[in-house]
């Protein structure tokens, strides 16, 4: 059973993502921002995939990618950013920080699960 860390400051998005992924049979760990996410990954085996919003208070998604990639267990774990079409530059920034890819908002649950299943193989 793959575990996914979902990071988003928006409660409704978190709820939606979490519910969708759980319905698709994944385990989900939730975090409200980058700082919270780093707290959640500390002291547990690495999750199988990280899904993080870009725009978040305290620590944004891009900084989170950078921090995660510096952790031994997260060097090669897929990290997907939730970006918007309005900010295409975030894709490059995210990639430069080490993100695997992105999912463009708005997306529907089917797209989300489809992409994640593809990445996890």
């Amino acid at each position, binding site marked *: 059973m793959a575990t996914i860390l979902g990071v988003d400051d928006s*409660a409704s998005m978190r709820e939606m993502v979490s*519910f969708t992924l759980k*319905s698709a049979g994944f385990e989900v760990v939730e975090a409200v921002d980058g700082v919270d996410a780093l707290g959640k990954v500390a002291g547990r085996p690495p999750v199988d995939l990280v899904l993080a919003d870009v725009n978040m208070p305290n620590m944004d998604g891009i900084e989170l990618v950078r921090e995660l990639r510096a952790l031994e267990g997260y060097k090669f774990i897929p990290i997907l950013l939730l970006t918007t079409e309005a900010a295409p530059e975030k894709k490059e920034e995210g990639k430069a920080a080490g993100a695997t890819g992105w999912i463009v908002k708005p997306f*529907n649950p089917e797209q989300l699960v489809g992409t994640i299943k593809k*990445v996890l193989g």
Partner: protein
Amino acid sequence: MSIDLTQFHQTYFEESFELLESMETALLEMSPGSVDMDVVNDVFRAAHSIKGGAGTFGFQEISDFTHVVEALLDGLRSEQLRVSAPMIEELLASVDCVRTMLEKQRSNEEILPSDWAAVHGRLEGLVDVPRSSGPTNADVAHATAESAPPERPEALDWKIDFRPYLDLLRTGNDPLRLVTELSEMGTLESHCELGELPDFDDLDPEEIHLRWELRLHAATTEAAIANVFDWVSDQCNLEITVLPSDAPVATKDGHRSTVAASPRDNAAPTQPTVDPGKPEGRRMTESQSIRVAIDKVDDLINMVGELVITQSMLQQIGENFDQTQLDALRDKLALLGRNTRELQESVMRIRMLPISFTFNRFPRLVHDLSRKLDKQVELELLGQQTELDKTVMEKISDPLTHLVRNALDHGIEQPEERERVGKPRTGTISMNAYHEGGNIVIEIADDGAGINKSRVLEQARQRGLVSPDEVLSDDDINHLIFHPGFSTAETVSDISGRGVGMDVVRKNIASIGGAIHLTSAEGEGSTVTIRLPLTLSILDGQTVRVGRENFILPLVSILESIQVRANDVSRIAGKTEVFKLRDEYLPVIRLHRIFDVEPGRLDLTEGLIVVVDNDRQRVGVFVDELLGQQQVVIKSLETNFKKVDGISGATILGDGTVALILDVPGLVTLHDRHGDRPDRAKSVERDTEVVAA
């Protein structure tokens, strides 16, 4: 998989309203010239979140509208635009638009262009937004290109040369995934070149030294193939070419991997199972819900745990009880009492919210009003964490708005006028909330002109509210403004209305068991003090006895209880009974007459008079005796029986009997209506006299 997105709408609305509030607060802090980037970022993020959710949940108008807001804020964030006063005003207006749209969306009302178009246009004027109707269209186009070309192209042979850079693995990408994805588009033949692999000793396992030559026979487009490599486009060299149609599909060696074309490429995203835009006619009404902090719930669970333990201890005592266990029983009962009280408090805390929920809207109100009136006003909010019952909070909101409007409109003077009388040009309105006794006190103070007492008195005399020779205390004069229809504002303005306000404010506050008081010093300002019960469901009551009936008087309205002497009692015009309290004569209300019950005592000197205050006047309620004081749970008479004048509800006492809770203002009205009604039976009076004798 089909996920019903409507289940997340409520969370989205709640979250968005909160975001709007924080946006508003931040915008009010912003001023042209001094811009705090953190604040701009916060506002941007709020708008961004609202837009993102709107897009996801299919609220197109909200998404489109917030797109412009976001664009403007992004301009500020990247310092391509500069903050100006009109910009702040438009952003504040946009907060209102989004709020209206969200409210309509929540109640499934149609969002009209009039809700947003004007502000949208002005925002667009402030920022050079691309004329597209928002990002969602672009996304749709994107999604279409990604997955389903409008017309299914003919099957072609594609040659794909994929050369990853060394660091491809470091972003968590896996070439195998890409190859697999291609294989799902048609028949794939892949050839991996190992030629660039270094010697084993030099091999860094975190780098990739492979390259692929791929042949794909599929009915697809170049864009769709490139899209597979979208995430790694900056980490590889990619060449996609079409082979001549007659070129045979190479069938060389073991690298061939033939996978039947799956229907994937023309399926999923184009036909979403869920259409978030249409909740299938299901009406999403505003649910009555409350957000509760986890620690409050934990407390509650904890209390219930304690209660269960106490209950089991009591049960053990009860199972084989004898006299020796009396002390233990008493202890446990005391414990049960404490548990119950604590449990009650925890349950009540669940309904409590910090008053900041209500206070938060005032900075905006004051900002807008002071602009409109050309006044300079600073708002001070104190005691924002003071908690009160959600229902009380909802009911207090309108009266508070009215009072603040009044303070701004009638209280605070124009800057020039303030300067002339030696005050700072900027006036101050402060709102404070705190606990006092079992009550919540809310104060609204301004340092404005105060109440012009002579003018109030003059008007009151003109209207016949006060007789020409009547002498009134300052306090009495101040309270005249709570009289229905009273206004001394020389000009009727659209800000605080026509003076019909203050009596409505008083009534609203009285309806939730509160009291309002006003003090004012001419030239220095006014302070309105509102005293409210902590909750509407529990009341601190004084049990009183009249004949065989028990009644509850709200403790908050009781001033004192006295025993009168015979020579302090008299009648006005031979009818209305009054008694002398120090220098004042107060009317007496005999409960047995109002409720038509058999009286115990008739002589005022034998019973007790409870002096109560109902805002308008003080009266004495005559009772046989005072029993205990206790907290009682209010049961509505209206929902269980019908509305009864003079009674605000009922409760069940410790011995199981029902007691009626008296509504003091209602009692006074009833008394005024038939104050001179004779006792229902003279014989009773005689009997009692005999008994008394």
